[in-house]
């Protein structure tokens, strides 16, 4: 190594960030953070939402520059460097967001920025494909190189971003919550791949909210909390409960609050629902006070069911009855009027007006019903009181009700979206992946909000990709596989293994040992 002399000490520190601080308007994102990564290790970076993980990674990748402190990558001072320079040093970042060009092919996205050209300066598409193939095959064998990225599932798109990171022949790989968008199968694929990377001596920084992943692949852990570094230790020196305690700063008794609720009459009955995309012939009943889980791998058609009931997508056919009465739902307004609420999956896209205040976001769905005099003038005081109360009830981390939604952390944003629907006093609530990408403490708050709703007699549909949480606090669970409702289980009579078996497409008459 040429740069060996530039390093000091016997420790093989390849990334050394010292006393890094970063300020955003009104927020200290990072406060004098020290962060060291050793050569060849897999280093977990954990912390609650808003702890500063992503900010630190963006500083490493030079998307942001630090306001104070110093950063050395491979012995070189990174001050003044940009993304191209750190990429040349062998640093690659796999983003949480799928930063791909949807209308380009998979091969083109993988080789973006390094397209081979012929003598005329034109892109050599054939060679481009050949060049992309080995990198893509490294991570997936069933993605078509010629397919447009927009035709792929979210899981597949995430795998494409991994392949793209490989093209730069990284010696340091940063992964920012890579499994948040992956289904079970793709997650296994990713871990196999990371194992191979480790064997090759690639240094990995791994950001995740999933404890089992961290313990499975990481060597050391750094915990951030509220923009400060709490500790860095080898994984085996910290138990899972201790880790969570360090992240949250307060003790969590139980991950999921499970409470017995009294289940009443059928409030919603869905018969032969055919959404316009994916799902087919879905029929089920929902009772008041019940939390009904819907599980299935990514792309199985879970969200489509909820969106069709809510009127967010058109439906081809199907009957929806509420307390025995047939509903004609053509758009979300009909659904809201009937007392149905949907907390969507892509909260920034579908559930939040990011440039408006918490107050305006929270009362958006209930404005017409509850806070308007004569259906026109907004009753401002009543609105304000209700929002202030919600902020207290839901423990929203915000300076005031007037804070713009875009300035909130992901978890707080999700709470605002949920809070919005709670104010609407609906009879049926549908939650689509409400805890995705949210830290442990935030999840706990959201579970509690949902359990409280059920206790008050609402019917709740809870769509999730995480079997653990569905098992822990739903009463009953529907499994959707490839667009069809394949299994209904009572949660207290089932196990995670059984649920996973159906999620992965297992059938009753086949052996469950395979």
């Amino acid at each position, binding site marked *: 190594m040429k740069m060996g002399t530039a390093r000091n000490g016997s420790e093989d520190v390849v990334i050394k960030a010292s006393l890094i601080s970063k300020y955003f308007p009104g927020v200290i994102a990072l406060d004098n953070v020290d962060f060291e990564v050793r050569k060849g290790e897999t280093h977990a970076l954990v912390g609650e939402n808003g702890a500063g993980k992503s900010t630190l990674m963006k500083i490493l990748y030079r998307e942001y520059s630090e306001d104070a402190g110093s950063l050395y990558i491979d012995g070189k001072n990174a001050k003044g460097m940009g993304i191209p320079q750190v990429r040349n040093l062998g640093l690659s970042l796999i*983003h949480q967001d799928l930063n791909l*060009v949807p209308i380009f092919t998979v091969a083109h996205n993988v080789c973006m920025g390094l397209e081979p050209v012929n003598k005329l*300066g034109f892109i050599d598409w054939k060679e481009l494909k050949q060049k992309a193939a080995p990198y893509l095959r490294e991570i997936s064998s069933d993605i078509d190189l010629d397919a447009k990225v927009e035709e792929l599932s979210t899981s597949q798109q995430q795998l494409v971003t991994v392949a793209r990171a490989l093209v730069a022949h990284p010696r340091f790989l940063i992964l920012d919550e890579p499994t948040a968008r992956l289904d079970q199968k793709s997650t296994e694929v990713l871990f196999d791949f990371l194992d191979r990377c480790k064997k090759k001596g690639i240094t990995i920084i791994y950001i995740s909210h999933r404890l089992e992943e961290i313990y499975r692949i990481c060597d050391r852990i750094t915990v951030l909390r509220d923009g400060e570094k709490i500790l860095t230790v080898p994984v085996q020196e910290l138990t899972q409960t201790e880790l969570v305690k360090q992240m949250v700063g307060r003790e969590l008794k139980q991950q999921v609050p499970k409470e017995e609720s009294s289940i009443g009459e059928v409030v919603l009955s869905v018969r032969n629902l055919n959404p316009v995309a994916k799902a087919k012939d879905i029929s089920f009943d929902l009772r008041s006070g019940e939390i009904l889980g819907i599980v299935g791998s990514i792309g199985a058609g879970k969200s489509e069911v909820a969106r069709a009931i809510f009127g967010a997508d058109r439906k081809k056919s199907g009957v929806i009855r509420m307390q025995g009465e047939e509903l004609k739902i053509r758009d979300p307004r009909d659904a809201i009027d009937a007392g149905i609420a949907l907390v969507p999956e892509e909260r920034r896209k579908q559930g939040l007006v990011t440039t408006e205040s918490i107050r305006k976001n929270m009362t958006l769905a209930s404005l017409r019903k509850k806070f308007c005099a004569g259906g026109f003038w907004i009753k401002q005081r009543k609105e304000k009181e209700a929002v202030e109360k919600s902020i207290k009830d839901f423990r929203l981390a915000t300076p005031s009700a007037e804070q713009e939604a875009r300035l909130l952390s992901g978890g707080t944003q999700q709470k605002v979206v949920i809070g919005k629907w709670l104010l609407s006093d609906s009879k049926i609530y549908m939650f689509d992946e409400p805890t995705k990408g949210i830290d442990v403490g935030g999840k706990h708050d959201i579970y509690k909000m949902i359990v409280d709703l059920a206790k008050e007699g609402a019917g709740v549909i809870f769509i999730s990709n995480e079997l653990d949480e569905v098992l822990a606090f739903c009463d009953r669970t529907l499994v959707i596989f490839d667009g069809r409702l394949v299994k209904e289980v009572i949660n207290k009579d089932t196990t995670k293994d059984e649920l996973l078996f159906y999620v992965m497409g297992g059938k009753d008459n086949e052996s469950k040992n395979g």
Partner: protein
Amino acid sequence: MSQKTDNWNKFIANYGLLLAFLLAIIVFSLWSENFLRWGNVQNILIQTTSLGVCAFGLTLIMMMGEIDLSYAGLTGMIGAVMLKMIVAGYSPVSVVLVCLIIGMASGLCIAILVVGLGMSSFMVTLAAWFIYMGLERYIGHGVTHWIYKYDENILQIVQGHAGPLPVPIIIMLGLFLLCWLFQTRTRTGQYILALGENLEAVKEVGLKTKLLKGGTFVAGGLIFGLTGLIETLRIGGSMVYSGRFLLIYALGAVFLGSAAFKAGKYNFPGTLLGALFFYTIINGLTLNMVKFYYIPLVQGLFLILAVAITTVKRGEIEQVQF
């Protein structure tokens, strides 16, 4: 069955505009026997030149998710500058060079304001349009001048022939080929498209997005400079605010074009077709003595039709994504 309707929808979305164009040609040629005469076809092509060239520049900029309306004023200002130079006896070569340099300088100023300072491209270029109109008045004193009185040679740029083809047509088709090959075949061209689709994706792989964006504004400016040159020569003089009509036509051609070939996406073949369509309608209606004030009405209707096609198409695409 639904597969069949799907394919049919796709076909209409991609080739609907082409079919409509052919239909218009058939209708006009039945309506007036002069319509398909070579002389008239040449007329349409020559008239389309400045619009086509301008719309190519606009396509490039709209492709990367920005807008540039400055051409509406730049064209007239360049006309005024050209007349000043021609009257003063400058050579055609120097006149052409100055036009192109003005265009690039304009693009560079816009790039600095939009890319460098992060201002809205719509507002900046709207302002630029007005500034150029003011400058045109200042330079030309609002008087219409005719070129032939001072210099016949320079008019050959648009009046000359290369073989059977008039030079303007060659300029337009040449520029089309250049833009098309550049955008679809070169890395830079593909990055410009990617900028409009997902800026972050371009940034993340370490490409210099600001340089790319700025460069595209300058390239657009260069093409708008060429537009000013051709339009002034085509008219044969400097007419007050001569670029104004281009504003809506060029935007219309680009929009109309996005309804063709790659439904919902800006593309150069579509833009060329859009520009030709506009002048075909004008020409066909004029030949048949339709009162001139109905022409914008018909064009407006076509534009709404084109937007309708792309909107339906986009709706379809979004449905699939959820």
